[in-house]
Each structure stands twice: as C-alpha cells, then as structure tokens.
C-alpha cells in the first residue's frame, strides 16, 4: 500500500513539474534586420568606389513618372537629392535635455526676461489646503457638502490627497524660474514611485515667453492609475505611457502667435517672398534660413543640424503666415531626413511604447524666430557600417512604380467617384532615416532610405479642392534592400 501511495504521489509531482516556469526572455524581439545589415556591409566593387554616390547609384537629377487609374493620378516631376558623402548605418539612442543644454537654451532664448514657473498640477500648498478642508468637514459632520457618502470614503480620499502631496512638486506656480530643471515623481495607486522625470514649464506674462522642457520618464512599463478630483474622489483612470526622448519648445510671445496652423506649401530657400496674404511675409525663405542658422550657431548646434526644408504655414483661423524651417541632423555629412512635424505614432494603442522621430522646427516671421520645437534629439552611437552598399536607383524607381499604387490603392477613389485625386511627387531624397532596433525604444539605427515627398490634391466637380502638403514622406524605400519602410513604425 505504501509503495502505491508513493508511486501515485511521484506521478502527480512529475505532472506538476512538467509545467515548468516561464522564463523571462521573450521570443519576439522585433523585426529581424540582420539580412539588411549584411547586405549593407557588402563591399562596394572597387571599380565603383571612386564614383560619386549619384553616379554609382545611377540616380538622375530629376525623376519623372506618371500613373493614371480613373480619377486617380500619381505623378512625379521632382528633384532627386543625393548627398555627396557616403551613407553609413549608425546606432542612435534617444536623448533627454540635460541641465547644461537647458541652461544654454535658457540663456540664448530667455536671457534676462523674468520668467515664472508654471505648474499644470497642484502644488503641495494647494493639496494641503484641500486636506485641511476635508479633515474639518469630517470633524464637523459636513461631508455631504463635499458629496461624500461616509466618513470612510472621506478618509480614503484624504489618503489619496496625502499621496498626491508626496508626488507634488516642491515649487509653486509663480515662483521665479531660472532654467533649472524640476524633478517630478509619478506614484502608482499603492503610493510607490513608478516613474520620475525632469521638466520645466516657465512663462512670462509680460512678454508672453514660454519655455518648456519635458524629459522621458523612467518607467519601462505603462503605469495605469486612478485619477481623482481636487478632493481625492475617484473620477477615472490615467495612463503614463512609456516614452523615450525629451521634448523642448519655446514660444516668443504672441507676435502674432500661430496656435493652430496648416501647411500651405513647401518652398525652396531660393524662392522669393510668397504671394499669400498679400505678401504679408516681407522676409524671404533665405532670410528665414539665416535666422535658423543663426540660432543653431548660437546654440552650438550648427555642426550637427542644418536648415533642410522650408514650408509656408498659416494660422488656421487668421491669415497670418510664417515660415517653418525644418532642420536635419547631420551624421558624417549625411542628412537625417526629419519629419516636418511631430508625429504621434500608434494612436490606436495608448499603451504602446513611443519613440517619436527627431524633429527640429523653427517658425520664423518678419521679427525672427518666434517658435522652436525640438523633439526627441538623437545621440549618435557607433557606426555599423561607414559605407553602405545600396541598390541602384533603377531598382528603387521600379519599386516606387510598383508599390506606390499598391500602397495608396485605398486612397484611390472608385470608378464612380467624381473627385479627382492627384498625388504629385515634388521631391526625392536619399538620406538617413531612424528605425528602431527590434522594436526597442532606446536603441535605433539611422539607415539609408529613399524618401519621396508629394502634394496630394483632391478636386471635386464644383472646383473645390483640398491640397495637402506631405511633411512626411509618402514613400520610404530602404536604400539597401528595397523594402518599404512605414514611417510610423520605423521599419
């Protein structure tokens, strides 16, 4: 009998042991880029090494192309921009704005203008006063005045407020700002510190200056916690996503301030003053570029960044026009193709980790730069290859002709539609684009890509039309292996 019991217990134990604990290393690591890197590292034939990039790839000065299907047209008559320098593949990492950089920008942009700290969350004093009010309400039996059903509920709310007190910044709105970054903590529902970040929001009511720095939080997992009103009553949930890279913005008062803007069109630095708004802009794109370069030089960024593109933008509600200078990041003489605007990726999944593309925008009007936005600056790491082996332009063109209609097949109107849709490629450029390594948000690569930029125009029979400027490439082709890159996903 004892033997049988032992055998049965042993068998049960084996069964339990068969279900081993799950190890931590995941199987899914993100897109496999090994093949592409091996392709890029292949040596360039000796007889072609001394040729310029353009000649080696067979890239023309201009690209012409046309595709029609019903009321849908894709056309290209675009300059093909090819860098002179070899295109590397380099590792990149997201950067936050450290105190030294922030202080430099503060000195350059704010100077002696008195600025005050602006807080968007409650200060310790405000929270403390709410705690006092609630405590008095409990003692006086006036909980109904604050819509609390019971003493226990009110006491729980006080505990929430105490937690918020610990989380609240030590400074108060209105305290003088001097460019020193503040440290903020994000506590979870158990009061445990889930994330910390450094930030600074400062403004001057007299001048309208606004200086804002927000760095990435330390949490590597989304933090979901309950949100409460000013008296600690639960009103919903809030999420602190995982993000990489800091963001910086500076507004030099409302002169006039363009709050909501749209892209009119892309300009060239050699263009004259635009006609829009009755030539409201009295400076040329070249002048705007000069303002931008002056700023970059004063900020010590001229070695790494340069003015790459310029757009005409206007306020949505008024007729105020400005220039938007889009800067690029230079890596060994090659330009990183920056997005012309800050792009929110993965909007459908608020919990997905985000690493926005590096963006440096300078909005310029007749008085100079009035708005700067610098998002997710990149730190350049080691080079995986200094000189990438690229596909010839003929292959890239063939891929473009093949894939553009396929990619935008859903945008083409049906045969019965009266709307005429045109996509006009106005610029083709070979440069570097940031992709993520294995879906990580703290490691990426700059890889050579062919970027195709276009206007999209929709025209209805009544003559109304809508034209959209693409500050984002409509097509990104990996210059190494010809694969299509989704700008949103980064691969």
């Amino acid at each position, binding site marked *: 009998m004892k033997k049988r019991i032992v055998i049965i217990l042993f068998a049960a134990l084996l069964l339990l042991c068969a279900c081993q604990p799950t190890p931590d290393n995941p199987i899914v690591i993100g897109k496999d880029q090994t093949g592409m890197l091996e392709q890029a590292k292949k040596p360039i034939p000796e007889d072609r090494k001394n040729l310029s990039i353009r000649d080696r790839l067979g890239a023309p000065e201009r690209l012409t192309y046309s595709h029609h299907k019903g009321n849908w047209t894709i056309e290209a008559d675009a300059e093909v921009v090819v860098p002179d320098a070899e295109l590397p593949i380099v590792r990149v990492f997201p950067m936050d704005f450290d105190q030294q950089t922030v202080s430099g920008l503060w000195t350059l942009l704010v100077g002696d203008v008195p600025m005050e700290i602006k807080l968007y969350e409650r200060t310790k004093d405000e929270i403390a006063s709410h705690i006092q009010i609630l405590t008095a309400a409990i003692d006086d039996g006036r909980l109904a005045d604050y819509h609390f059903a019971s003493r226990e509920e009110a006491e729980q709310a006080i505990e929430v407020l105490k937690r918020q007190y610990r989380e609240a910044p030590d400074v108060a709105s209105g305290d003088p700002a001097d460019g020193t970054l503040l440290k903020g903590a994000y506590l979870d529902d158990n009061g445990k510190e889930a994330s910390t970040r450094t930030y600074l929001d400062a403004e001057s009511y007299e001048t309208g200056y606004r200086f804002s720095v927000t760095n990435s939080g330390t949490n590597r997992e989304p933090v979901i916690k309950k949100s409460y009103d000013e008296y600690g009553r639960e009103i919903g949930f809030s999420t602190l996503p995982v993000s990489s890279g800091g963001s910086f913005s500076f507004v030099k008062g409302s002169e006039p301030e363009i709050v909501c803007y749209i892209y009119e069109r892309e300009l060239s630095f050699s263009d004259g003053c635009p006609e829009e708004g009755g030539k409201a802009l009295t400076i040329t794109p070249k002048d705007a570029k000069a303002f931008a370069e002056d700023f970059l030089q004063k900020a010590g960024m001229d070695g790494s960044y340069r003015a790459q593109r310029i757009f005409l933008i206007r306020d949505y509600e008024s007729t105020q026009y400005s220039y938007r200078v889009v800067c690029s990041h230079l890596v060994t003489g090659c330009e990183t193709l920056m997005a012309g605007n800050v792009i929110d990726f993965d909007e459908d999944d608020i919990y997905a980790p985000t690493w926005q593309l590096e963006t440096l925008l300078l909005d310029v009007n007749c008085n100079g730069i009035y708005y700067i936005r610098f998002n997710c600056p990149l730190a350049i790491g080691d080079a995986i290859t200094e000189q990438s082996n690229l596909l010839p332009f003929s292959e890239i063109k063939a891929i473009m002709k*093949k894939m553009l209609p396929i990619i935008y097949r859903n945008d083409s109107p049906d045969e019965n539609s009266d709307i005429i849709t045109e996509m006009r490629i106005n610029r083709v450029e070979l440069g570097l684009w940031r992709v993520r390594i294995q879906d990580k948000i703290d490691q990426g690569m700059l890889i050579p890509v062919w970027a195709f930029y276009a206007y999209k125009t929709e025209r209805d029979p009544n003559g109304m039309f809508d034209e959209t400027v693409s500050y984002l490439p409509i097509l990104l082709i990996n210059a190494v292996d010809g694969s299509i890159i989704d700008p949103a996903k980064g691969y």
Partner: protein
Amino acid sequence: MKLSNRITILCSSVLAAVILSVTVALLLFAKNTILSLSNEQVQRKQQTLRTSFSEMANYYAANSDSDAVHTSLVRYCFTRFSDQTSVLMKDGETVVSSVIVDPSAYVQKDGVDYGEAMPVAVTVQGRRLLIAGSSTSIGGKTYDVYVVEDISDVYTRIRRMAWIFAGVSVATIALGAFVVMALVRKSTKPVTALSEAAREIADGAYEKRVAVRTKDEIGALGEDFNRMADAVETKISELEERNERQRLFIGGVTHEFKTPLTGLLLHAGLLRRANLSDDERDASLAHIESQTAWLERLTQNLLKLTTSDDEIELQAVHIPDLLDEVKDGVEPKLNERGATLSVQCETETLTLNPELWRSLLNNLIVNAANAYDADAEEKPITLTVKDKTFSVTDYGRGIPTEAQSRIFEPFFRVDKSRSKKQGGSGLGLALVKAIADAHGASVTVESEEGKGTTVSVLLP
C-alpha cells in the same frame, strides 16, 4: 494495528487514489483541450496568413518584376497581414521575421502535415512554442510562411491550475481522512465495548452485559453477545449446581458406604481372628449378609440413579399389568409393615420405560409403607393412576414442612434413625425424581404432619 486505524488508512488511501486519479485525469483533459485549441488557433492563423498574403502578393506580382521589386512587394504584402509571430522565409533565408527562432529548424518540410500547417510543439530557450508552417508560391517563387506562437503562458496557467487542483485535492483528502477516522472510531466503539465485556466475563463477571443502542449489524452482534452471556451464565450456574450436587452425592455415597463397610470389616475380622461360638459366628455372618444385601440394594439404586440421566427407551406399556407387577414386588414390605395397598387404575396404556417406572412406583410405595403408622386407624396406602398421573397416598406421619423441599435429595432422610432401622438408604425419592426427570415428568408432594403424604408424578 487497531482495526479502526486499518480501516481509516484503507478508506483514506482509496479516497486519495480516487481523488488523485480524478484530478490527474481532469488536468490531463484540460491540458489536452487547451493545447488542442491552441493548435487549432495557430493552424488557422497560419493558413489565414498564408492565404491572405499569397493572394495579395500574387495579385500584384508580375513576371517582369526584378528580384528587388519582387522582394519588396513580397515583404510589403507579408507585413500587411503578419504580426510579430509571423516569419517569411525563402530557400532557408529569412525574408521577414520578428522572432529569434528559426522555425525551419523545427518544422519538417517534407512531412505529410506540412501542407496543412499542423503545428509542431517545441521548447526553445525554456519557452513553449507552437510552430506552424507551409509553403506558398508567389510569382513562381516558393516561400515558406510560418507562425511562431509562444504558448508559455498556457503552460503557466496549466501549472497554476495544477497547483490549485493539488491543493484542493490534498485538502479534500485530509478532510476525508478525518471524517473517515471519526466515523470508523464511532462505528468500532461498540466493538471495543463488546471486547471489554467479553474480557470481564472471561474474568468471572458473568453478569456483565453490553448496552445495545443501534439497529445495525453491530447492534445485532450486541444482542447476540448478551444472549450468549445469558446462556453462559445459566450454564455456569447449572454446572455449579450439578457440581454441588455431585459433591454432595459423593459425600453422601461415601458416608453411606462407610457405615456398613465398617461393620463388615469388623465382623469379618471377628470371624477370622476370634474364637467365636456358633451363635456368635451365625450372628456375625447374618450381620455380614444383611449389610452386604443392603450394600447391594444401595449399589443397584445408585446405578439406576446415575444411569437415569441417559437416554431411556420408552415403549407403550399396559398399565394394569405394570401395576400388578408392582403389587407383587412390594407385598413383602407391606406385610412387614402391616400395611395394605389399594390400586385404582383408569389408564390403559402409557408410553414409558417399564423397568424404571416399576422402580419408581416401588420406591413410592416402600416410602409410604415406611411412613405407615400401625397404631393409627387402618387406612390403606393408595396407588391411583388417572390419565398420566400416578399418585401414591399414605396416611402416615407426614413430612415436616421444612423438610419437604429436600426430600428428593440423595441420602436425605427426615428421621435418620428410623429410616436406617427400617433399612432405608435415603435414595428412594431421589431415585423417583431422577426417573421422573428422565421421563420428563414432574413430581409434586402434598404432605401434612400427622396426616399423611401424597406424592404425584405427572407424565408429559
């Protein structure tokens, strides 16, 4: 080991075996069901991916496409329908993949199931994977489409479920064992009581009984035990009585033999050693003869007495003939006492042992004759037979009340001196009682001092 413990262990073992078997079976069933569902899902996912991807890619593929265009198209189409578990390979080389596993190393392309994308379960770096793959042709080129699904969480859930089942099983077994132990102890408590009672009875407490409370087998056992104890107590009492009677009987026999033997030895010694006159010699010889005859009678009566317990042979006897024989037998004694016998018989035939019954009647009449008072008004001794009752009545001196309960004891005499003088051994009525008992008959005595005695024997 105690029976209660053995039963508890046995029942608990059976309970544990049943629960563990059911638990293991349930777990295996759940595991197989979950894994089967996972297999189906992965297979469906792979087939859907392969179909959707190949349909789109083949729709747009053209023979004129260069390798770079073809590859770009294939990658784009695959990425449209794939997720992070999808892998596209061509000629053993990865085209699109987000996993660190090379699925082609685990899926046999030559296998019968490859076309149907039957998932293969593998363990890679401690993680449980289901890999399904099959081929498709895009523009004349063969691609292998795989889905690599990590189902480690499934096993984690199964493991968690197993622990829960194990915990519940252990708790159930423990609780069951406790309940079994309590029930067994409660059930075997009467048995323990029976055992203690048996021990006490064995130690001599024959009056010990057990309290019977239940109406089951244990209760029946208790009742039977009590009945057995009653029988044992009764038998012990009977044996003790018989033992006492035998002791008394032997004592009486010894005592009765002692007196005549003493006389015999004396007179025998005289005859051998002394110079006796002829008259003295005749007197001694006469004494020896009478004592020897008395011993013979005593011996015969003792023999009858001892054998009367044996099985006796019964037969139909003509009662009037029997009574005539009795009359002839007792006539010398009656004449000696000057008594007369009157016989009244209303019964023709009865079933009895004639020899023993003649002895019985003989003893009753001799006793009556011995009690006959010659000085009293002449009244005959009567022997009456009516139905099955034999009655002998005398009008003698009667039996004192305090002696009536003992007159059937061997060697008991109401008046020892007179009885001995008359040659009585004290065994007559004991013999009557023994013969009556052997026939299953009952003996009753009605007597009044100075007025006489009636002894009645009723056959069954």
